[in-house]
């Protein structure tokens, strides 16, 4: 039962797959004369090798590092020298452990397969045995310098086990080559038949028949070639289909494009005419703008003059207010003087009244005197004359006082009128002051407005100047647009020609593609 389990286990091993059975192992050992005594000798060497394992491995890899090709192989396998040194040390010590059964064979086969897979050719692999020999033999010879027989046996044992290993390694390489050869499963006749079928197929494709496909059997390289031929034909058919579709749609698009280009050409012509018209209009606008600029400049100057005049007006108004104030003071002074004069006139009137009263009394006295003189008779006649003259004087005084009174009355009336006129004058001056102040306020506001207007005019002048600059730029741009439009007209014509040519090419292309049967 245990033997059965071992047998089944061997079925998955490399040795079983490669047909290396226990008998086979034994035959190989017999062939090279490897005995248990050799195994014993190798085991005896173990301590020595273990002692020098590191320096042997180091020496081995110093040799390897000299070959760039080898280092590339190691690097491409995703490994490095340190990891390899550990594996190599283990490999080296296994040579001297003394167990050379199935497990040993399995590990050695595995090493060979791994080296084959990473692309390390047998040349390098087998060469390394010679390197080992050159490293190990001097150690053995040195240890058994005085036991030549034993030394020879030891060296032979080492040589035998290295030979055993190299056999196994060669087996793995050969096995790999054989399995590659086995994958070519078809016979020569089958290959010829298949190739003939492929040739017919390719000829049909060459004549434009893309509807056929090769029937594929198997998975070898020839079958793969057939699949690729099928895929190629499929791609060709797809391309031919796409070309047909593309040429169809291209013809349609080109027709549209020709129409569009014709429309564009017409539009471009209209645009050119419009641009010319716009340029003419712009010239007119520029002329108007120049006039506007002149007028705006004149307006600015007028506004400046107006502002200056307005400020002069404000100054004059200020002086007028001061003058009106002075007039008011003077008129008030006149009114006071007239009032004083009126008072004095009244005093004169009182004095005149007193004089008149005295004259009246004098007149009465003169009358009494004349009466007394009359009583005196002849002797009183001279007195009567004096009394009459006194009476005349009294009457003259009365007349004079009456005249004075009349004059005073006139003066009083005139004074009253003057007072009234003066009061009206004062009121008038007050009203005048008020009006002048209002006028001054209005003039100040007006001056402010004028000042703002002047500033606005300056801004207008600047704006008009900028506008003129803008119009010049527009005119230049319109000129550019005009030339571009002219170019566009020419280009449209060329495009139309090119589109027609393209339409012809598309037609030809469709004719060409129609040779394919899809």
């Amino acid at each position, binding site marked *: 039962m245990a033997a059965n389990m071992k047998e089944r286990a061997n079925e998955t091993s490399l040795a079983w797959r490669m047909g290396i059975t226990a008998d086979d192992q034994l035959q190989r050992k017999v062939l090279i004369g490897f005995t248990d005594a050799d195994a014993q000798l190798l085991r005896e060497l173990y301590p020595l090798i273990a002692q020098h394992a590191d320096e042997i491995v180091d020496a081995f890899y110093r040799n390897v590092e000299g070959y760039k090709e080898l280092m590339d192989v190691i690097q491409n396998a995703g490994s490095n020298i340190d990891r390899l040194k550990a594996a190599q040390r283990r490999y080296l010590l296994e040579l001297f452990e003394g167990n050379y059964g199935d497990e040993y064979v399995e590990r050695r086969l595995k090493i060979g397969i791994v080296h084959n897979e990473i692309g390390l050719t047998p040349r390098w692999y087998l060469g390394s045995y010679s390197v080992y020999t050159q490293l190990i033999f001097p150690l053995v010879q040195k240890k058994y310098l005085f036991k030549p027989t034993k030394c020879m046996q030891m060296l032979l044992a080492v040589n035998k086990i290295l030979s055993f290993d190299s056999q196994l390694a060669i087996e793995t390489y050969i096995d790999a080559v054989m399995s590659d050869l086995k994958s070519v499963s078809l016979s020569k006749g089958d290959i010829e038949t298949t190739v003939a079928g492929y040739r017919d197929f390719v000829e049909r494709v060459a004549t434009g028949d893309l509807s056929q496909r090769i029937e594929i059997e198997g998975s070898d390289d020839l079958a793969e070639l057939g699949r690729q031929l099928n895929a190629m034909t499929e791609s060709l058919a797809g391309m031919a289909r796409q070309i047909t579709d593309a040429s169809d749609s291209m013809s349609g698009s080109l027709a549209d494009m020709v129409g569009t280009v014709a429309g564009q050409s017409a539009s471009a012509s209209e645009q050119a005419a419009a641009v010319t018209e716009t340029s003419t209009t712009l010239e007119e606008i520029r002329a108007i703008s120049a006039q506007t600029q002149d007028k705006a400049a004149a307006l600015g100057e007028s506004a400046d003059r107006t502002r200056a005049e307005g400020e002069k007006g404000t100054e004059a108004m200020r002086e007028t207010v001061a003058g009106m104030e002075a007039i008011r003071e003077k008129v008030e002074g006149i009114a006071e003087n007239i009032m004083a004069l009126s008072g004095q006139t009244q005093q004169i009137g009182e004095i005149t009244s007193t004089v008149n009263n005295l004259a*009246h009394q004098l*007149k*009465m006295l003169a*009358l*009494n005197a*004349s*009466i*007394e003189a*009359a009583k005196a008779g002849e002797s009183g006649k001279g007195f009567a004359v004096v009394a*009459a003259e006194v*009476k005349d004087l009294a*009457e003259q005084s009365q007349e004079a006082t009456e005249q004075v009174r009349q004059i005073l009355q006139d003066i009083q009336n005139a004074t009253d009128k003057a007072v009234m006129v003066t009061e009206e004058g004062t009121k008038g001056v007050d009203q005048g002051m008020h009006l002048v102040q209002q006028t001054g306020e209005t003039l100040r506001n007006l001056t402010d407005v004028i000042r703002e207007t002047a500033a606005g005019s300056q801004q207008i002048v600047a704006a008009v100047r900028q506008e003129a600059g803008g119009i010049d730029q527009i005119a230049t741009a319109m000129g550019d647009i005009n030339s571009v439009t002219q170019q566009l007209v020419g280009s449209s014509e060329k495009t139309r020609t090119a589109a027609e040519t393209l339409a012809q090419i598309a037609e030809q292309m469709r004719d060409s593609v129609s040779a394919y049967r899809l």
Partner: protein
Amino acid sequence: MSDGRHTVAAMPESPADRAILEQRARQLARLHEQGDLDAERRLYVRFRLGPAEHYGIPYEYCEGVVPAAMIASVPCTRAFVRGVINHRGEMLAVLDLKQLLHIDGDACGEPQVILVRDQAVTAGIYVDEIIGSDEYIPSQLAAPLPTDSTINLDYIKGIYQGRVAVLDPVAILGDPAITENHATESVD
């Protein structure tokens, strides 16, 4: 004879010149007549009663003129008695002629009192205004005309030049109505 001849010879020959000469002669003759009238002239005090009526009192009856402000009114007297006045220590009655002559109208001007004497009787006459002294010719006084409103025509000596009524103080002061009333009032 020669003078007469010279005189005749000196006479203007033209009738016009003769007329002028004749007129001058008449004027000279009238001046002589005027000189006679001047001798007849009498002075009088002219005054006003009421708004416009002018009256006069001859100088020979006048004692003087004093201001009416000196009048002291006396109660319970007749209406024509304006009051009394003290003249040089003598108490005199002042008569209101406007009452006696029935003169209406507002008084304006400066009222005065004219002192009048007739023999032993002296009294004051109240006037609205003294105009002054003037002259009149007694022979040219016109008789006063009776009207509905005027009474006591005896008080008026005559109308001079149709403007001034010259009063007769003798008639006024001697009027029994006044004196009797005086007596009655004094008895009372």
